[in-house]
């Protein structure tokens, strides 16, 4: 059911990423997402970047909807339904977070609750956001930190960790999966992203081999992702048509 809250804070994180806080008392767990609605416009899935009170979302302005959100003023209404999806399991021992792109938003809610080492990747230093002291950075162009992908940066350290949480674009996650030893002792969980129309598990637009990212996920164990033969191979367009990924990299 659609509800609304008021925007209490809207911070620009970098050139095109914003964090919006709103006065809601939803109880959500890290990893869950909302379907955010711009009345008269579209409804889009958005992870909570903070699940405590007040909650927040952190988003990159892609198209019309995210641009409209970025232009809201303090006190404006923000409409949404949710929270939806499962959540990250509670970790123990040594924890690593591995994020790329807007995946960092979803991980952030977890980072705020459970300490761990954070590995973040972006194209350039200007694309980074939600960065804190001690984060391990990778940039494609080497403008900050390690030059290369965050997977390149992280994988050598995999065995040091008991729990690993990964969130990022499908090709990034795919390359992680492809390069990792399936018998690793680390418990690795992935938060996946797919086109979502309903968000509640009935329209089938986000399904991968019968796993619905919106309802069975968004968080899956490595075992589950390994069973998804479609994962990283093709996604679905708005019509449901298979669209093959050209290349594992982005």
């Amino acid at each position: 059911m659609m509800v609304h809250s008021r925007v209490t804070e809207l911070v620009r994180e970098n050139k095109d990423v914003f964090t919006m806080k709103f006065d809601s008392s939803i109880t959500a767990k890290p990893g869950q997402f909302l379907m955010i609605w711009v009345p008269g416009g579209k409804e889009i899935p958005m992870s909570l970047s903070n699940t405590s009170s007040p909650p927040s979302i952190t988003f990159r302005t892609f198209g019309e909807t995210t641009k409209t959100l970025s232009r809201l003023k303090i006190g404006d209404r923000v409409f949404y339904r949710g929270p939806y999806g499962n959540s990250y399991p509670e970790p123990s021992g040594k924890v690593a977070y591995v994020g790329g792109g807007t995946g960092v938003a979803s991980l952030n809610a977890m980072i705020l609750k459970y300490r761990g080492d954070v590995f973040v990747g972006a194209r350039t230093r200007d694309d980074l956001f939600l960065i804190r002291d001690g984060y391990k950075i990778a940039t494609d162009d080497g403008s900050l930190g390690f030059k290369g992908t965050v997977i390149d940066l992280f994988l050598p350290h995999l065995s040091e960790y008991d729990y690993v949480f990964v969130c990022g674009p499908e090709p990034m996650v795919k390359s992680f999966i492809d390069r990792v030893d399936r018998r690793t002792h680390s418990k690795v969980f992935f938060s996946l992203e797919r086109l979502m129309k309903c968000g509640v598990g009935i329209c089938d637009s986000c399904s991968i081999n019968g796993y619905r990212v919106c309802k069975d996920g968004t968080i899956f164990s490595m075992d589950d992702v390994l069973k998804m033969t479609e994962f990283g191979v093709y996604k679905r367009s708005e019509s449901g048509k298979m669209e093959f990924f050209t290349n594992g990299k982005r």
Partner: protein
Amino acid sequence: MASISTKVGNFSLDNPVILASGILDETSGSILRSIRSGAGAVVTKSIGMKERKGYPTPVISEISTGLLNAVGLSNPGIDNFIEEFKNFPEKKRTIVSIFGGSVEDFVTLARKVEGAGFDKIELNLSCPHVQGVGSEVGQDADLVESIITEIKERTNLHIWAKLTPNVTDIISLAKASEKADAYVLINTLRATGVEIYSRKFVLANIVGGYSGPGIKPVALRAVYDVYKETGKDIVGVGGITNWQDAIEFFLVGARAIQIGTALLYEDYPIYKKINNGITQYLDSEGFSGLDEIVGVMVNDGTLQGH
């Protein structure tokens, strides 16, 4: 233990609980999941001639009595569909739903479906929120009749005709579809919803289809009306959420049922839950099989009223 197997036309099903068109049946993976979770059969999302994106979001809106949707017949188009389902292992338990704007569309689609190794189709004559197809076709009795006659003549497909409840007279529509092997009743009701603080419609398309518990009394009436009048095989659909609902549909004439929106509430375990409930009801009420209760409230002379 009572038998819950059933037969719709010459199609035998292990159990009467079928996944309805449009819910979790766009991808082959999800269809398999329903079958493996215990569905007696599965109807695919409605497939048309060409790829269609469907409407922009919001495409659904949950309300207290059910669900509003205007997905807009998004589908990859028949050729992409066939490509994806080339090696699909459960073709016999899959009914392919097709929609079109003309007799030719329907015939072309049917022949392609048959060519791809399926043997059953459901004609979506009833989607209430896409212009030129769906219920605009389904409200035209002559057109409906030609579509079914032509497909019967030019294929060997087993045909279900899914009718729209958004009509003055569902009986004459049913009669126009009488060459189909069975009727599927009902599709969604034309409806809308409003968000009062933004003063905008809750669906991007404004008008959509209403499904779920709130439409059950209307669906049950449609099944009753059509069964009483035609005696034909019927697959009941509309608001079925638990086994008690399913029993209601059997009693007024449905030989099988479909579930859509209830997956939102109960998810994949629903197939087994409903089937177990039906078995227990039959056992405790002293019936040895589902067929003993199909239509008993219409057939057995106990009709009350006028």
